[in-house]
């Protein structure tokens, strides 16, 4: 008979190998495309080749005539399902009706127009080519600033100005601050559109059981429960008859924090054909039709005193929304505004957002979601201010941080930073990199004509989303912990990890709380028929919110264990430790297996106690958590070619208490490399007609191993007071810290040429042009 194994050494803080890895390294994990079902059909989607066009007619007959094709559906067939939901609400927000298949008009290249269903993947693809769509192309606009210009083509004819919303936020007295300032610096800063590029594209398998009137959807998603609720609504099925399973999910980075037309469409198709149906997105579709990130044009002004003390900041933010609102599209730039003061004492701020429709795929949450743009802005502006005042960029930052005793620290944007010692990671990073020696080396390099740069960013981020009133769908997370009759421990979390490793970190938490071996703990997630309701994994929230829910579920469970233990040990002074319930007076103990057995057998029950050992906890966080850190980057620019080489990368992060340093390092590395990607090479490029030029990995430059540096990581640890684990969050930190550090470094390298700012991506050609003209780009 199986029993639990006791252990005494705590696992939190240890470098524990991941428990999910055996299936990944052996190729036996089950991603959506690995699912096969008897009678399963395959769908292929006919998409618009035009960024804007009227649909004059669709002839599906040639496709239907192909043997193996069972159905073709168009917008006429699907007009009563959907729409694709927008979960964000802002005052005055214009929300276009987002049909799951286009009706009389298409709005971006890749817009779904029809779906072909066949017995075989290859036949479905062949048949998609046979659907004849008669388009009348219309003028399109792909650039948000051009979309705002008078006379620009209207993306949605009903709103000729292309403005989806405007949003204003103010704190303190910005006009007074600017009037009193010794110095004001201004800069236009672009955060270009990026393509999230999770290695697994999206995919859906939908299975309709007519007898049960029940739909099961296997979906590569970060939010199975929210998807279930929204799918049920879009398809008109009772929610309790929809099951969503997020199987193994091959990365998301925010792009799978959404409900897409295809999710709803596959449910529709399965119900119509009465057979399971599979749709797997191609990489080209992924680049055309899955959300993009960023897409900002920002106009910054900051006001400061001569000694470098910052006074105020103004921001005009133009957000390229694309043609529609996906789940959170219009909310993303509001996060930028929340974080615009960065880690500094900006007491006076003013921000104006203009959300702009363009004939492009919608933007939405991509790793960092609004915060990388804000951090990039403030960190660039701090360097521009330092240059203006001839101050060292480290010094100007140290001058403007709140002191540790000022926490909780209220920002001018209405946030309360939980805890922090913002100077600590910067000082540590400066020490690791030996800053004075490095600056001396730079002087020598400059004397020798070399372009060497040192860039600093001290980033802060808002994560652990979040208090429910501040989120569109609830910000809590749930956990159920049960001790099985044999004493084994099962954790069911509402978080939905897709690479982050919570099957390991949550097992560490449970093993420590109960004092059992981690091998006795299993963490389940991602299946709405297994897990109580949950919110999902995004916004660096899984450990800080989901892990905390696990922690509180365990506390309740321990209380129940103690009640059974007290009964069995005939003592009222017991504690749970080392996988046992121990009488503190006698030292007599009952193992968890013995207690679990007694609780399920229920021959005798403690007073007012139900049988079984199961506890469910929905934890509502009282605040966000605010990680921070300092990244320092040393670059060298090849004067002849414009090539940038990152010579050193030091990242000192403070993500609060660390559960598993191995996994935290992995998150930092991955995040940093996505930030480096934005800084150096990644960009989604549309031409003037709205055609996506970077439509494949042959043109969209996702960083390769040979182009990224070794990343030296270190930490300071400032526990968050928001949750009892003291954790903050680390999934997005690297991305947020990286892009300004890299750009600041390259601007510093080119400073002798009079360069003050460079927009991303800093391609070799762009740098070469700057070197040759000595101007800003």
């Amino acid at each position: 008979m199986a029993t639990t194994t006791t252990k005494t050494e705590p696992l939190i803080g240890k470098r524990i190998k991941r428990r999910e890895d055996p299936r990944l390294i052996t190729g036996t994990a089950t991603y959506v495309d690995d699912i096969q079902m008897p009678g399963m059909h395959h769908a292929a989607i006919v998409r618009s080749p035009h960024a804007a066009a009227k649909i004059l007619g669709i002839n599906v007959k040639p496709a239907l005539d192909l043997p193996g094709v069972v159905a073709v559906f168009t917008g006429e067939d699907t007009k009563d399902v959907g729409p694709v939901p927008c979960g964000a609400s802002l005052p005055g927000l214009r929300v276009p009706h987002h049909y799951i298949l286009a009706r009389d008009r298409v709005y971006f290249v890749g817009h779904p127009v029809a779906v072909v269903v066949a017995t075989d993947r290859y036949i479905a693809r062949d048949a998609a080519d046979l659907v004849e769509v008669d388009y009348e192309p219309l003028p399109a606009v792909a650039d948000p600033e051009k979309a705002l210009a008078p006379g620009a083509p209207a993306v949605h004819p009903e709103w000729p100005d292309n403005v989806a919303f405007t949003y204003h936020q103010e704190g303190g007295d910005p006009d007074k601050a600017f009037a009193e300032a010794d110095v004001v610096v201004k800069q236009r800063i672009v955060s270009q559109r990026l393509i999230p590029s999770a290695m697994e594209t999206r995919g859906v398998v939908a299975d309709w059981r007519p007898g049960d009137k029940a739909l099961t959807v296997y979906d590569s998603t970060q939010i199975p429960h929210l998807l279930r609720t929204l799918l049920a609504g879009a398809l008109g099925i009772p929610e309790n008859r929809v099951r969503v399973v997020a199987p193994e999910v091959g990365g998301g980075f925010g792009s799978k924090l959404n409900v897409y037309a295809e999710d709803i469409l596959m449910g529709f198709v399965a119900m119509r054909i009465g057979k399971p149906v599979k749709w797997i997105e191609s990489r080209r579709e992924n680049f055309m039709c899955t959300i993009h990130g960023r897409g900002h044009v920002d106009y910054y002004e900051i006001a400061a005193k001569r000694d470098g003390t910052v006074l105020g900041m103004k921001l005009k933010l133009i957000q390229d929304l694309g043609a529609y609102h996906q789940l959170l599209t219009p909310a993303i730039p509001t996060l930028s505004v929340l974080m615009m003061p960065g880690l500094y004492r900006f007491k006076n701020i003013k921000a104006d957002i203009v959300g702009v429709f363009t004939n492009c795929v919608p933007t939405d949450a991509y790793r960092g979601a609004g915060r990388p743009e804000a951090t990039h802005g403030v960190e660039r502006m701090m360097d521009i201010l330092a240059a203006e005042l001839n101050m060292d960029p480290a010094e100007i930052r140290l001058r403007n941080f709140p002191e540790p005793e000022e926490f909780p620290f209220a920002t001018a944007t209405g946030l309360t930073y939980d805890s922090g010692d913002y100077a600590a990671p910067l000082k540590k990073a400066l020490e690791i990199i030996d800053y004075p020696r490095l600056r001396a080396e730079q002087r020598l390099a400059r004397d020798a004509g070399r372009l060497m740069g040192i860039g600093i960013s001290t980033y802060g981020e808002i994560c652990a989303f979040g208090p429910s009133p501040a989120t569109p769908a609830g910000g809590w997370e749930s956990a159920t912990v049960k001790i099985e009759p044999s004493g084994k421990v099962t954790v069911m979390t509402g978080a939905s990890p897709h690479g982050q490793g919570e099957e390991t970190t949550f097992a560490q938490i449970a093993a420590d709380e109960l004092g059992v071996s981690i091998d006795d703990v299993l963490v389940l997630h991602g299946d709405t028929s297994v897990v109580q309701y949950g919110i999902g994994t995004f916004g660096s929230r899984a450990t800080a919110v989901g892990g905390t829910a696990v922690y509180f579920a365990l506390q309740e469970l321990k209380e129940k264990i103690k009640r059974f233990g007290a009964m069995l040990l005939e003592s009222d002074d017991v504690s749970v430790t080392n996988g046992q319930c121990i009488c503190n007076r006698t030292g007599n103990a009952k193992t968890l297996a013995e207690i679990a057995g007694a609780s399920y057998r229920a021959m005798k029950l403690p007073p007012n106690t139900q049988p079984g050992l199961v506890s469910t906890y929905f934890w509502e966080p009282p605040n966000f958590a605010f990680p921070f850190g300092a990244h320092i980057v040393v670059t060298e620019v090849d004067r002849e070619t414009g090539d940038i080489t990152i010579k050193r990368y030091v990242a000192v992060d403070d993500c609060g208490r660390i559960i598993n340093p191995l996994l935290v390092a992995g998150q930092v590395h991955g995040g940093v490399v996505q930030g480096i990607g934005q800084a150096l090479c990644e960009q989604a490029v549309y031409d003037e007609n709205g055609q996506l030029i970077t439509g494949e990995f042959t043109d969209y430059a996702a960083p390769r191993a040979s182009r990224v540096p070794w990343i030296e990581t270190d930490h300071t640890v400032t526990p968050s007071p928001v949750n009892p684990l003291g954790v903050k969050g680390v999934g997005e930190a690297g991305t947020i810290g990286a892009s300004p550090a890299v750009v600041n470094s390259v601007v510093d390298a080119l400073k002798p040429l009079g360069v003050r700012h460079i927009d991303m991506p800093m391609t070799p050609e762009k740098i070469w042009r700057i070197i040759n003209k000595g101007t800003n780009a």
Partner: protein
Amino acid sequence: MKQTINLTINGKSYSHEVEPRLLLIHYLREVVGLTGAHIGCETSICGACTVEVDGKAVKSCTMFAVQADGSKIVTVEGLAANGSYHPVQQAFWDEHGAQCGFCTPGMIMTVKQILERNPSPTEQEIREGLEGNICRCTGYQHIVNAVKAAAAKMGA
């Protein structure tokens, strides 16, 4: 129209009738049922589909199954032997070389080839060797560590 192919996959013989246009990756995944190799792009860039054909790591999305007729194929599922992982698999586990895991089988097959040809690569050689495999999660650093660890173990 369909043609018969005979080949060996992970030491077992297979014979199937296939359409000439059937890609090797689809053959392995959907006909044979070995879903370890994945499809991450259409343009032979990402390397998620990497398997070994006659001792050489190849992108199985850019090869037709008929081209592999008569070949010996090894996929990630065929690496573990006698109940223990291949040293490259073990190193990916030990060094946290996988996050979402989607690129991992292709990475492992490429790393196996790198180490067969260069048993003790430098960091730069490792990074250049991974040119044909994109990972979006790890920033590659723990993969580099895994290659070093596997090299040390296989050389020992």
